[in-house]
């Protein structure tokens, strides 16, 4: 077989991998219309270019900041490492899921007249093509940008990029391996999936803080720590970081070659024996939906989103403890820096819960569950998790001598509830196209923009009121008042769903009755 033939076949496999990675989890179980299927396939290919453009821009921005602010100058290599890691990790992450759940690709390849070596080459090329643009951007942008700083910096940036690419690929390979080895239904699987996005969120959270931390806590032993030693631009540290980069690269190449084989290795599932009478754990419909939400979310790629508010809180504590900024900052700065982002992160929980439901949504729709009931269940989960994180944050502010901060922190439950109503409305439109939700990146961006506005309006009003009145208790009233106004149109649309049996004047009564009966 000619190299060109392998390249062509790898192109087809690459197309399918990208489609599976990007689109398959967004299909609802009904056949999508031709228009939606074509759009999904097109967006699947655009995804890596979009990611490359966004993170390439972040790297350029980072380097520009270094030129403008000399105090920031030394930490650039570490920050470049973080952005490169996130870009390559997220790009390859899609493919990890594809590889772990695409037996039809393996079946297709096995029917072709290819020997083992040709199959592996096809597999490797197809996987590599899925991350080609992110890798190229990760190498070209820092090295070209580095020439402005000088040759030494260009080399240091290159080492940072290679380290970032290698470690990101190695992490993805490890996750892919974990997904294959661990049964989908097991608790360990849930933990792996929930934990899979934690490195990215943590790195994104500390991308700017770590170089500052290193600068503040300069210590010679940090010069030996992989990645952190990119901070020091001297011959010894650069040589050491070069050695680390080579080791990371070897690890990535080894893992990558394994991943190419995974794509070709059949998976065998053996049923577990089940003895005795089958007993069903009967719960109320609401508890059943909440349990389903958690099981679905923990076992899907969106599992990491459940951990985001908690991670954010951990980051807030780290920052507060290390810099003592939590108590020293002005209240409005504290609000904008900690509480609003924490609410935004919590709002993404509803997105994760609704999105993880999509795969079985056709079946879900055939059950006697109204959209309003579904919204109430998502509300309980989202608000419950925020209540825990918010209570911890409240305890922290009380501990730091700012007890008045407590009320508005907890009242942010109302804007959060409005975002869940928005998510319910947004996902209720899933079936409009005949079977596929989240059909393109534009709708996903629109959702995020919608959430930003829904949170920004009441919290902005609160901030203005707090600035004018200097009274947090009075100005806090803006949070529930405006959120309820925001929520009303979404609830109206959801209540018009088929779920409410009664019509006309009795609608509200029927709603209340159904909401109450849901918990019995």
């Amino acid at each position, binding site marked *: 077989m000619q190299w060109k033939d392998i390249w062509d076949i790898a192109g087809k496999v690459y197309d399918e991998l990208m489609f599976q990675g990007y689109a398959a989890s967004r299909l609802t179980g009904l056949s999508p219309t031709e228009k939606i299927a074509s759009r999904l396939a097109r967006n699947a290919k655009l995804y890596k270019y979009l990611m490359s453009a966004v993170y390439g821009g972040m790297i350029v921005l980072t380097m520009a900041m270094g030129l403008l602010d000399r105090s920031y100058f030394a930490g650039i290599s570490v920050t470049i490492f973080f952005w490169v890691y996130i870009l390559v990790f997220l790009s390859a992450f899609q493919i990890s899921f594809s590889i772990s759940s695409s037996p039809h690709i393996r079946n297709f390849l096995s029917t072709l007249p290819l020997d083992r070596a040709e199959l592996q080459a096809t597999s490797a090329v197809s996987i590599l093509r899925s991350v080609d643009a992110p890798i190229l951007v990760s190498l070209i942008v820092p090295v070209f940008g580095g020439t402005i700083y000088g040759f030494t910096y260009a080399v240091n940036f290159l080492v940072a990029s290679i380290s970032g690419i290698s470690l990101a690929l190695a992490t993805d390979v490890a996750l892919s391996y974990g997904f294959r080895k661990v049964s989908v239904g097991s608790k360990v699987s849930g933990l792996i999936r929930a934990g899979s996005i934690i490195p990215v969120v943590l790195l994104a959270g500390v991308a700017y803080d770590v170089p500052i931390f290193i600068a503040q806590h300069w210590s010679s032993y940090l010069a030996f720590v992989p990645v952190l030693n990119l901070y020091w631009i001297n011959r010894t540290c650069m040589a050491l970081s070069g050695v680390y980069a080579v080791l990371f690269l070897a690890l990535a190449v080894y893992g990558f070659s394994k991943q190419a084989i995974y794509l070709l290795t059949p998976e065998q599932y053996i049923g577990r024996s089940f003895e005795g009478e089958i007993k069903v754990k*009967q719960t109320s419909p609401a508890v059943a939906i909440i349990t389903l939400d958690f099981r679905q979310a923990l076992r899907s790629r969106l599992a990491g989103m459940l951990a985001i508010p908690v991670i954010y809180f951990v980051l807030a504590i780290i920052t507060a403890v290390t810099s003592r900024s939590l108590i020293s900052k002005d209240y409005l700065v504290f609000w904008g820096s900690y509480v609003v982002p924490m609410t935004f992160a919590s709002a993404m929980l509803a997105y994760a819960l609704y999105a993880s439901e999509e795969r079985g949504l056709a079946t879900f729709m055939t059950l006697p569950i109204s959209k309003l009931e579904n919204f109430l269940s998502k509300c309980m989960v989202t608000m419950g998790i925020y209540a825990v994180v918010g209570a911890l944050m409240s305890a922290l502010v009380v501990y730091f001598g700012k007890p008045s901060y407590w009320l508005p922190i907890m009242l942010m439950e109302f804007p959060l509830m409005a975002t869940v109503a928005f998510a319910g409305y947004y996902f209720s439109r899933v079936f409009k196209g005949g079977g596929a939700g989240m059909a393109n990146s534009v709708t996903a961006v629109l959702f995020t923009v919608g959430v930003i506005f829904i949170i920004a309006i009441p919290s902005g009003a609160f901030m203005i009121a707090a600035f004018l009145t200097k009274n947090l208790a009075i100005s806090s009233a803006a949070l529930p008042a405006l959120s309820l106004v925001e929520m009303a149109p979404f609830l109206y649309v959801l209540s018009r769903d088929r779920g409410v049996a009664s019509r006309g004047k009795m609608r509200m009564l029927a709603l209340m009755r159904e909401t109450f009966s849901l918990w019995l």
Partner: protein
Amino acid sequence: MQSASPLEVNSLVVKYGEKVAVDHLSFSVKPGEIYGLLGPNGAGKSSTIKAILGLVPAQEGTIKVMGKQAPSKEVMNYIGAVLESPAIFDVLTPLEFFEFVASVRRVNDPSRLNGLVEAFELRQYLKTPIASLSMGNKQKVAVIAAMLHRPKLLLLDEPFNGLDVKSVRIFKELLKMHVEGGGSVIFSTHIMDVAEKICTRVGIINEGKMVAEGTVEELRNQVKAASLEDVFLKATEEEEEVKSLINALSGA
């Protein structure tokens, strides 16, 4: 007092953009009846079933299940449905899925579940993720979930897909028992033999329109055909096309 008809579809229209999938379709299913919805690929069978379930919007017409306007939450209590591709939550195990369905439908009947699981030989897969089950076993999970609450109306879209011979036989017997117990069934299929054996009545649709309806015997007599397959080909005006294609193939 006469009981409400399990299903009444009147002048149903379903469109995907400009394409008309179902074109003013009307039919009804009587109590204790197995109604077969037959038609070539793309005739509008699945779209009709999806419209009854509210999975695609009906542009025109009315649908009533047990006398109630469909789709609605109340109507879903009467219905059990198996969709063409078993779109079930594939990260759950069958047992978790059954627990979810039983809780939402408020069914507490362990003997029913035990009986169905034994009948379809699904016991060994109860704790296996649905994602890793074969297509046939996924179909069995969907069938059990649909029958768990003894629905008044079973809506089945190509329900025999992927099932082995033994499971098909068991499923057919279950359907007969279901209608003997007062339930009704509407199902779409491409397998004429199955439709011929178990359907009380059949409706043949083509390009979204009903082109023939009646008992298998009535239809055979109407067009003087030996089998339901012949009736189907005549009704969908595909008989001549099939003959010419076979002639072309044999001469090739």
